[in-house]
């Protein structure tokens, strides 16, 4: 074995190339009416190859799904949490994912290389009202996170031109024009689809989250937030599945950097000259010791509470 790398505490063979969702065969757009079916076939074929070939790396967190983690009712593996999370049946989830137009819903692309149990959770989340799958999962990591924190490109917006204009995917002004996207000084994601699904499923069974989800929605109820250590939801190596970028301060001030970014993006949208400088960011070094923030609010029809957002936060300096 010429190479080996440590992953999940075990020596793993290094394949000829690490298989990321963006590098899968079929990731490029195919012409013709059966473009998406062909794309899915290619992705599935790559998955089959990966399952047969031990030298072909799988997404790392998938290897941790059967290792027990502490929970409110005693230790149990993440896979049980994935299987027991309420939502779509496995068959309905596969139908949803197979019918999805991946150009319109690029955030589903990482699910194509996830475990079946994670795919069910991801399909369930995709049918909900939350923003976390679109803005804080694998498709929103890497360059997407960097472009979000620097240029306010909303990863939930599948239209490349509109996204490049910093249009928000959800918010439209009274004049019908999309509002400018907003983002704090960090853009973060759980970049591994199995880890993302595990974070959602284990969050939903966490006592602090259940306390809110089980409430009856009252007329004046508003959003609530819960913050849980990453290692509590994803295990001791869970931070390795988190990634993100942070805006670089200007003159030592993050306030100035945020102000500058708003001015720079406004000028780009308006096609106007500006004194603002192009924003820059740096990769967040580590999420070890960080948390996962979970925002919960009543659904639009106020029938029940639902997780509206979920994202990792690096440790405070």
């Amino acid at each position: 074995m010429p190479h080996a790398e440590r992953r999940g505490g075990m020596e793993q063979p290094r394949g000829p190339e690490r298989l990321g969702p963006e590098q899968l065969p079929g990731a490029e757009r195919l012409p013709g009416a059966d473009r998406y079916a062909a794309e899915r076939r290619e992705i599935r074929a790559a998955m089959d190859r990966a399952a047969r070939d031990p030298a072909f790396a799988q997404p790392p967190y998938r290897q941790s799904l059967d290792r027990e983690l502490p929970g409110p009712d005693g230790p149990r593996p993440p896979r049980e949490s994935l299987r027991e999370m309420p939502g779509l049946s496995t068959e309905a989830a596969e139908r949803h994912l197979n019918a999805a137009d991946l150009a319109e819903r690029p955030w589903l692309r990482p699910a194509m290389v996830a475990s079946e149990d994670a795919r069910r959770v991801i399909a369930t989340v995709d049918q909900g009202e939350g923003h976390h799958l679109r803005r804080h999962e694998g498709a929103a990591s890497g360059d997407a996170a960097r472009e979000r924190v620097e240029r306010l490109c909303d990863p939930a917006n599948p239209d490349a031109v509109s996204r490049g204009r910093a249009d928000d995917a959800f918010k439209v002004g009274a004049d019908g024009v999309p509002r400018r996207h907003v983002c704090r000084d960090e853009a973060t994601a759980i970049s591994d689809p199995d880890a993302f699904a595990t974070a959602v499923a284990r969050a939903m069974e966490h006592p602090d989250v259940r306390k809110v989800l089980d409430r009856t929605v009252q007329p004046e109820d508003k959003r609530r937030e819960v913050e849980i250590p990453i290692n509590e939801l994803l295990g001791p190596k869970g931070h390795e599945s988190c990634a993100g970028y942070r805006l670089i301060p200007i003159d030592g001030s993050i306030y100035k950097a945020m102000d500058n970014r708003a001015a720079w993006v406004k000028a780009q949208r308006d096609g106007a000259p500006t004194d603002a400088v192009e924003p820059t960011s740096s990769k967040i070094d580590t999420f070890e010791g960080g948390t996962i923030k979970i925002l919960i609010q009543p659904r639009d029809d106020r029938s029940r509470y639902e997780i509206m957002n979920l994202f990792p936060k690096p440790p405070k300096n």
Partner: protein
Amino acid sequence: MTGSFWNRYPDAPYATLLGVIFNYLNPDANEDMPALKRSLSHTDREWVRVFKEELRAAMRDPGVLPEGTLFEAASFEDGSERRFLDRLWRELYGDEPV
């Protein structure tokens, strides 16, 4: 206990102000100024009164807020805490004197 200042110390001074700002105005909480205005119209509610009092005090001296908590709550783009607080007051209470 993990989490934001306003979650860890919900009864502390300025926890109401910061928690409301986070829940209604933070980008990650799907910021919604119209919803905040609607909620603040219920002036008979205790938290609405506390919010306004704490906003007044913070405008007089932003230094009363625990360091970094206002930015954590609001992720504002105004360039300074004072400018954000001034804008917030104007948007919520118009020309009403502080």
